């Protein structure tokens, strides 16, 4: 079975074209934002032996609305 080709929505296409006109420095300035994330931002360092440990920790400790849970 062959996947249907992805059609780019016009609004996104215009955004991609606009971004292509910007320098990398400008793109990064617009892209990176910082807001406080509860729990996640409250420890200076976290280390996980496995990705599974990390995913499980996120599901058990972070608010659902942050979107770190698996679906």
């Amino acid at each position: 079975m062959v996947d249907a080709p992805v059609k780019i929505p016009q609004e996104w296409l215009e955004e991609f074209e606009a971004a292509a006109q910007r320098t990398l420095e400008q793109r990064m300035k617009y892209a990176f934002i910082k807001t406080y994330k509860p729990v996640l931002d409250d420890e200076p360092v976290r280390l996980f032996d496995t990705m599974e440990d990390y995913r499980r920790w996120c599901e058990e400790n972070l608010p659902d609305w942050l979107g770190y849970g698996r679906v």
Partner: protein
Amino acid sequence: MAAFEYRQAEEIRDAFNRHGCRYLFIGKSGAILLGFPDTTQDADLFVEKSPENGRSLVAALREIGFVFSGAVAAEIERGKDFVQLKNGPFDLDLIFAPDGIERFSDAWERRVEVEGFTVCSLDDIIASKLASHRQKDLESLPRLESFRVYWRGKGK
């Protein structure tokens, strides 16, 4: 803590190169380096998992301004799958075994270089988001896949 800046990405690039640390920008931060217009809070690095690269990584991060105890440094050098750092000049996630990518060496072969930054291919970025099964990653996939079509159309 302010948002991650271009200047800080340059510090990563330059310090990691000085110390010979092999890394790739991954996740949405990697896609942004490739031209993807979107927002994110995190800078994510896929780092080769080896004792030598771990030592280079710790040295480079200390040079940039991250502060580790000897125990934490030793753990990073010994090898973890995921490390989240909020103890430096910017927040940084270090991923040593991203979902959906078999080996660092494979991703390295497929890498894209942008202004000296080493970045995972869009295929690998999309594969890792798909394999994570996380809500926030799956929500970003349609736009990322559209960007891949656009990007390929530009001969990238």
